[in-house]
């Protein structure tokens, strides 16, 4: 089942290669079909995961390179199952949003689905060799997706070209990958079991000294992709350059790969290292939260606001992980899911506005709610999720992170909560400026979201509300996964 989940997108990408370029209808049907199949598979994987049983489930293992101890080993636990679901939802809505992708729609979807395989693969791989392989597979298409389909912006005092955004994103992430790869090889050697298998490495264990030495490789290597301060600037600039669907997948799912790798490889395999470095990580996470929120407040471009808000919200993930408590890590994983959906929604809506108005400058908008009722309503929901309103998914996640942080570093917990208040300030200012107030006559003719776009956004909004009201739906799995992981700490 899991191998189907991972391989279908890349097979679809292969089929697309064979498809003649002009066949738009066939292209879209194939893309939509693949999106629906993947969503269904992801939902099936999540629902079939039995949290009472725990452990890795739906396990598949195929021999590959016996001499090196590499096998194609797949499985999900309580942590990865919700993230698989997240990816299914974001991909599906991403396909719908990119319906009229121009130019070269075929090439776009080829790369898009290749990336999708990489993301699913990273979440379900239980072999570190393949985990790293899929991780790279997810990151590298970004370069072309942004470089070719992105947009350049002139902000008056400075310019951000799409080539710059693509280049910086790729170079920074590859630099992180190098650290990860070095760490993986060192771990392979140090564990001395001649295997890349996660379970073997878990069982082997490593000396405290080695763990402490290796942990920073993963903390920084994976942390870069999670937007860890001060290696986060690729993220807002990348978003500003990226096309809508790429931003959705990028902030919605890709940044989670970093946090997931940190948890799955760093914390789970190097618990002693995690204990030694947790204070550093949690302080950096706090900086992410407050610094990201302050930066977001000063931005004038809608995409920069959302980009910096991602930096801020990923800070909660890092903080939650760094508490090394079950509650905190529960919150971190739920926040990965919640932020993924929320930020995908944000970018989808910014894309809808941008496509019509051809600007993203907050200062030129006013009173859009009068013309774009649906878009505005959805944007308000996304904003309220962002500021941690109860009843929406972000609240429970952040609340659990706060509980975890208060048990370990109360002072940082206070700062994190203040960060949430700063978020409220910039989100409410944004909503008030862009959507409320008298309609700027310049935007009199702006049409609202089409039913297609509205449907994609509605799927995301429904997910946010459902998880916010009934967090147990995800928390049963997450809690069982994190508890199993925490026994190793």
């Amino acid at each position, binding site marked *: 089942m899991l191998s189907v989940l991972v391989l279908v997108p890349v097979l679809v990408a292969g089929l697309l290669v064979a498809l003649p370029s002009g066949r738009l209808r066939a292209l879209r049907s194939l893309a939509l079909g693949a999106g629906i199949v993947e969503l269904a598979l992801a939902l099936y994987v999540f629902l079939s995961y039995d949290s009472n049983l725990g452990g890795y489930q739906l396990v598949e293992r195929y021999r590959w390179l016996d001499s090196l101890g590499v096998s194609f080993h797949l499985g999900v636990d309580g942590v990865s199952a919700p993230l698989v679901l997240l990816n299914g939802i974001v991909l599906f809505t991403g396909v719908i949003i990119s319906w009229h992708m121009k130019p070269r729609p075929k090439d776009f979807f080829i790369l898009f689905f290749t990336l999708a395989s990489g993301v699913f693969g990273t979440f379900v791989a239980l072999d570190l060799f393949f985990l790293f392989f899929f991780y790279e597979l997810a990151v590298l298409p970004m370069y072309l997706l942004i470089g070719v389909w992105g947009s350049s912006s002139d902000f008056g005092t*400075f310019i951000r070209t799409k080539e710059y955004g693509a280049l*910086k994103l790729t*170079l*920074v992430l590859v630099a992180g990958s190098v650290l990860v790869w070095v760490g993986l090889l060192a771990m392979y050697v140090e564990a001395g079991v001649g295997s890349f298998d996660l379970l073997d490495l878990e069982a082997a264990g490593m000396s405290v000294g080695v763990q402490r030495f290796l942990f920073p490789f993963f903390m920084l290597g994976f942390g870069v992709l999670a937007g860890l301060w*001060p290696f986060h*600037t*690729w993220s807002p*600039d990348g978003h500003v350059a990226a096309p809508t669907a790429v931003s959705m997948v990028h902030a919605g799912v890709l940044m989670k790969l970093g946090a997931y790798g940190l948890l799955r490889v760093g914390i789970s395999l190097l618990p002693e290292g995690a204990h030694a470095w947790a204070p550093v990580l949690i302080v950096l996470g706090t900086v992410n939260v407050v*610094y990201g929120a*302050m*930066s977001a*407040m*000063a*931005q004038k471009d809608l995409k920069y606001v959302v980009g*910096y808000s991602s930096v801020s919200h990923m800070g909660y993930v890092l903080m939650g992980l760094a508490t090394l*408590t*079950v*509650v905190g890590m*529960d*919150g971190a994983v739920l926040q990965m899911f919640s932020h993924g959906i929320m930020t995908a929604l944000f970018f989808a809506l910014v894309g809808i506005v941008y496509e019509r108005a051809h600007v993203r400058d907050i200062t030129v908008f006013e*009173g859009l*709610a*009068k013309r774009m009722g649906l878009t505005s309503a959805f944007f308000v929901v996304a904003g*309220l999720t962002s*500021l941690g*309103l*109860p*009843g929406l998914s972000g*609240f*429970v996640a952040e*609340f*659990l992170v*706060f*509980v975890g942080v*208060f*048990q370990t570093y*109360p002072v940082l*917990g*206070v700062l994190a*909560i*203040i960060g*949430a*208040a700063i978020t*409220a*300030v910039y989100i*409410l200012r944004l*909503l*008030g400026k862009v*959507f*409320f*107030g*008298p*309609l700027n006559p310049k935007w009199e003719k702006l049409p609202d979201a089409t039913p297609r776009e509205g449907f994609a956004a509605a799927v995301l909004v429904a997910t946010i509300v459902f998880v916010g009201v009934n*967090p*147990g739906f995800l*928390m*049963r799995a997450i*809690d069982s996964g994190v*508890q199993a992981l*925490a026994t190793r700490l």
Partner: protein
Amino acid sequence: MEWAWIAAAAPLAAFPLVALRGKWLPGRGAYISIAAIGLSFVLFWLVGADFLRRQADHFSITWFNSGGTRLALGMIIDPLSVYMLGIVSVVALGVQVYSLKYMEHEPRFSWYFAVQSLFAASMLGLVLSDNFLLLYVTWELVGLCSYLLIGFWFEKRSAAEAAKKAFVTTRIGDVGLLIGILVLFKATGSFDIGTVIQAAESGQISSGTLTVAALLLFAGAMGKSAQFPLHVWLPDAMEGPTPVSALIHAATMVVAGVYLVARAFPIFEAAPGALEVVGWLGLLTALLTATMALVMTNLKQVLAYSTISHLGFMMLALGSIGFTGGMYHLMTHAFAKALLFLGAGSIAHGTGLTDIKDMGGLWRKMPLTSTLFILGALSLAGVPPLGGFFSKDEVLAAVYHNQGPVVLGLTLVLALLSALYMARLVFVVFFGPDRSRESGVHAHESPWQMVVPLVALAYLAVTSGAAAFYLPGTGEGLGQFLFWEEGEAFHPLWWLIIASMVIVAAGFVIAWGIYQRGWRVARALEPVARLARRKYYMDDLYQWTIDRVVLVFAGMVALFDRTVVNDGGVNGSGGIVARVGKRLRYHETGRVYNYGLVMAGAIVVLGLMVTLLR
């Protein structure tokens, strides 16, 4: 009793139904909303009757588990929650019925009723919740609804700003509330209010922690209940439709803070110094805003400042260990204030006027509305035998027993100011020359859908005084009921009652002199009045802080991020690599003898290393 949760769940269920499908529902969804809150009101009676036969109890279900901690949705049925259930549901019901006519021409009519339902549901959930997590959840939802309703006419810049201000200001207080809840959780390992209170009473929590936690909870209460210095949002909240103001000022939102202090009262009692802070801040807020109520000329704004003043008065009561008095005043104020706001709406509906400078002689034009409005005003001014008179005296008694003479003296000054600004409204709006004719307005009475709720609220405002002595069904007074086990009777202090009556009378005489006879006493106080009219420059100070401090700092962080972290750190390190590469490229000369030299040198060095380091 087990089904009391339906009281909150019914309006909650009405919210998505009316919001999404309102257009196709009876009464464009309004009837669904009203039926839901009506059901809550009926349930109040059933729960109350059931409760009188049984004991306080609480029920809960698991929301989700995390790391062995059970996060629950639970409700508590005790005197305080039953009492609040009644107040909230009856006022919300009255407001919704009133809105039926008042809002009928609004294009977003269904949305209005949907949010009204969510508002009522959140507030009912808040007063029923038995743990801090659910309390915080509903607390925030109450904040959300006020945001949506104050900003109901979001096309108006001022409404959008007022909504934002309300949400942000209360959110600042909520930072404190959330931290306080987490401090208590860290100390006790529980979110359950009963468990935390037990731990606090048994001395399980160190007194320092307890005081910190209590003050943090109070910070949340200050935001919601608009206590100084977080009071600035409430006067602006009148940008919403008038029935919304009635709801916010009377039964939802602002009383949440007072309720929180009352619900967590044992924690405040056990925390050294906490109640003193509550009392003093309440008194300060009450005095400060009473002076503002005296000088404002917008009818709704006067009422808004009067609300803040009375909320301060309730906090003062709680701070003086006057639990009964504080909660009693919450009720009498709720009925009177809802009546006043709906009355103000009725006046605006009938005359189109909002500024009292344009009103006058309305008593002749709208006798019914005027009579009802005046009843509410007299109750709040503390005129016997209306509700406000009794609750005020109960608070005064508590202040007398538990505070020093200074506080008592200031409280009596407050009583004078309260009487004065209410009397001012009465004289300026309803008596004297008719200034409305000059502005070409023809006043008329409101339709019966608007009058019925007014009459009902007026009835409650008048009769709530009797609750002090006799609460129907319980056979005893409110004091015994609220304190269930160690009952507390109404304690009248005759000299204090007479003193307060004299003060109220003096207030009316002074107001009559100034506003009917043109006495010139106000002239001398003009500098103070100007200060009060400028809201003591609080709004300007906050605006300045946001524009000149917060935003400037944010701009600096963003600039630092773009120039130092990105251009310096990221591009810089990239640039270094590029420069190093540029240098190194000159070593690729393409000449074999260069490479041979390097190779030979390297072999020599490596050979030396191997032999020497062996």
